[in-house]
């Protein structure tokens, strides 16, 4: 089983990213579950979502304790949240960042999701949309296939800019 | 629904009611149902009428009656009306509730049903106390009246449920009184011609509650209207019409004392309270007259 924890802020679409990832995994023929950990919903408050991907039905509902991959959609949550908590030794970090960041002991990948979203004019209520481009980055990392990512995005969104942003992130992911 | 001038002979309240002698509700019900006809369901929350129907396995009622919990009448009616209309049926859905189930515990559901534009008629027969449980005060009890929970006379004023209903902007609302059965009949008929929520508030003098001899129910109702303590009027799409008996009362009211004196519930009422009641009556009549005169 592959476990992913996604950190974001309320209103940035972290929950949707989890859903899209699960949908893409399903299209890849895998079994997947996605769940946010909810407190009182507030714009701007830190939000955590969990995604599990496996070849067999997933029976676990409790929170992910030792993820294989941590995704950080908003680096500012790291001021208050220990996003690396429990991350498996040698595990992966995918962080939304314009410049290269490193976390010792882990494999870190950077992609400027915010920059891509702004370039593609993927902005809603003043906030850049991060949940569709991040799927492109995850596809590049091999978590799910590019084809399934596009399929999942198109099932949820009619605006093709979402797919374009995902394709851009796929290209621009800094290994 | 066609308006008919003559009151039909058909009775829908048959023998074996458990009503008190002189009960306004059983009188009202006969005229309500004559106006509504057989394609009608009454929704009845806990109130005297729950008991008046009779006891299993008998019922005095010759229309379907859905008995429901105290707070729930208007909500139940809301579901029922929506179900009938969804099925293309025109069946009248009429809530028939006491003042407790309307002004107090039932107000939330009633307000919600009105706010949602529910197609139903809400009738509140008001005996100004919780009659079924032995005459405790309700929001509808007038100031100065003795009840078992206001043994020296209620100090708070009667809740103006008509103003509250008017604020919901119903297509039709009216006040009437069981002492004027033809008026009850006409208003129920009229209400049922409107689509959407309609409201009829019937003053229902109550011999055990108001403490007067059982044969004087009609007289009490007439005194209430003649003194101005109860006003007969209608609002059609918000346009007020004060009915003739109250117009007459406004011109030449009888002294309030003539209404209060024969009722044991007002025994020992002090002069100050009587004065307050008189002022409130005046204020109310002026307000209504001004509203009626307004363009």
């Amino acid at each position: 089983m592959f476990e992913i924890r996604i950190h974001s802020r309320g209103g940035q679409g972290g929950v949707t990213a989890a859903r899209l990832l699960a949908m893409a995994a399903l299209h890849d023929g895998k079994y997947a579950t996605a769940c946010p950990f909810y407190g009182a919903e507030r714009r701007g408050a830190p939000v955590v979502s969990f995604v599990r991907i496996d070849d067999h039905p997933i029976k676990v509902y409790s929170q992910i304790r030792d993820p294989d991959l941590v995704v950080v959609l908003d680096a500012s949550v790291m001021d208050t949240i220990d996003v690396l908590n429990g991350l498996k030794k040698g595990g992966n970090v995918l962080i939304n960042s314009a410049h290269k960041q490193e976390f010792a002991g882990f494999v870190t990948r950077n992609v400027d999701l915010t920059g891509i979203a702004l370039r593609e004019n993927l902005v809603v209520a003043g906030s850049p949309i991060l949940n569709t481009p991040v799927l492109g980055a995850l596809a590049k990392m091999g978590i799910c296939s590019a084809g399934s990512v596009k399929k999942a995005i198109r099932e949820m969104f009619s605006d093709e800019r979402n797919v374009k942003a995902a394709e851009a992130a796929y290209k621009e992911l800094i290994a | 629904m066609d308006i008919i001038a003559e009151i039909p002979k058909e009775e829908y309240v048959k023998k074996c009611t458990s009503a008190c002698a002189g009960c306004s509700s059983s009188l009202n019900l006969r005229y309500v149902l004559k106006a509504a006809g057989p394609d009608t369901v009454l929704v009845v929350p806990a109130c005297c009428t729950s008991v008046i129907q009779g006891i299993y396995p008998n019922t005095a009622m010759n229309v379907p009656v859905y008995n429901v919990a105290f707070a729930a009448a208007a909500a139940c009616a809301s579901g029922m009306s929506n179900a009938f209309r969804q099925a293309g049926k025109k069946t009248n859905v009429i809530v028939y509730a006491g003042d407790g189930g309307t002004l107090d515990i039932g107000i939330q559901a009633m307000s919600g049903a009105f706010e949602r534009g529910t197609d139903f008629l809400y009738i509140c027969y008001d005996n100004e106390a919780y009659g079924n449980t032995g005459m405790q005060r309700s929001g509808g009890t007038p100031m100065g009246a003795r009840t078992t929970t206001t043994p020296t006379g209620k100090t708070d004023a009667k809740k103006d449920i008509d103003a509250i209903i008017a604020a919901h902007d119903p297509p039709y609302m009216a006040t009437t009184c069981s002492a004027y059965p033809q008026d009850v009949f006409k208003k129920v008929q009229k209400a049922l011609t409107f689509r959407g929520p309609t409201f009829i508030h019937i003053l229902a003098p109550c011999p055990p509650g108001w403490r007067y001899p059982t044969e004087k129910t009609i007289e009490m109702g007439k005194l209430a209207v003649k003194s101005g303590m109860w006003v007969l009027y209608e609002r059609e799409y918000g346009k007020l019409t004060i009915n003739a008996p109250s117009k007459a009362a406004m011109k030449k009211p009888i002294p309030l004392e003539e209404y209060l004196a024969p009722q044991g519930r007002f025994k020992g009422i002090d002069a100050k309270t009587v004065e307050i009641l008189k002022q409130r009556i005046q204020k109310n009549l002026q307000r209504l007259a001004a509203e009626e005169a307004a363009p």
Partner: protein
Amino acid sequence: MKKIATGNKAVAEAIKQANPAVVAAYPITPQTEIVETIADYVTSGQLASRYIPVESEHSAMAACIGASVTGVRTFTATSSHGLLYMHEMTNWAAGARLPIVMANVNRALGPGWNIWAEHTDALQERDTGWLQVYVATVQEAYDATLMAFVIAEHNDVLLPVMVNLDGFSLSHIMQPLDTVEPGDFIPPLHLPHAIDPKNPTSYGGLTGPNDYFRFRWDIERSMRDSVKVIDATQKEFAKRFGRSYGFTDDYRCEDADVVLVSMGTFGKEAEVAIDILRKEGIKAGSMRLRWFRPFPHLDLAGKEIVVVDRDYSFGSGGILAHEIKAQTKKDVYSVIAGIGGQEVTYDDLADFVRKRRMGTEFWFGVNTNV
């Protein structure tokens, strides 16, 4: 049709198929998505129901009652305090013999405000005459809701059915969902006592001491008869749609020495614990109880029983533990865990089995063995 959906969405999808004439509901976390999705289906024309946005849960059930007695299919959903607020009317619905279906998203009770999963809300309704099923996956939430209408509306039952989902753990988790075309799996509703102005009847009027008890016995008799109906409905569902459900969901119980009994999502996570225990040489099994009312006969002969209650009856004990003790006449190890959304992992569940002391009660996190 394969898709991914939350538990809440799965319930709403089932409602789309069941096509009730009237839905009356009030929002409450974590049920809200059910109500919003149904409202969306209605306004977008996907569902031909009348949606009544009532002003309270008490009114929601009252409205369902009023609609149901005209002989049409009705549905509502709630949680926690909403369910408690409805309690007078849930009693009324069962007493009035109305086949209303309700989804309850299990949530803890305040004060303090707690929006996370706990079963006490629904279990406090256990005396009302409602049938109750507890589901553990998104697929099961969908399937059980479809079956609920068939069971409730069966002439031998005519009692309301509550489908329970763990708040957030199941209501908000996204899992694969395969929707079906029910066809005639859900037959049209024929309510024998539907209102008919041509045959006027008074409903629920004054009933004296010489008669009333007969109506209460009638409810119990139908509750007992519902066992056969539930069984037949689940078998028919399996035949038509290929997914099999029983009164319990048993995992490795046949040769087990000790069985872990629980309800809801814990019952699925427990299977992971069972696999861990088996590797250690402990012959454990998991029995996830699905139907709480009617309480089914449980096959626990010769096994030690560890019960996980996500609920409590103060001054008495875990509610599930009590029911099991009453039926089996055996001592159990009663664990109280998951209260107010308390995190319980498969490691914790395995530990409950390892550390069991029969005849005692253990409050997880409090470390008190009673």
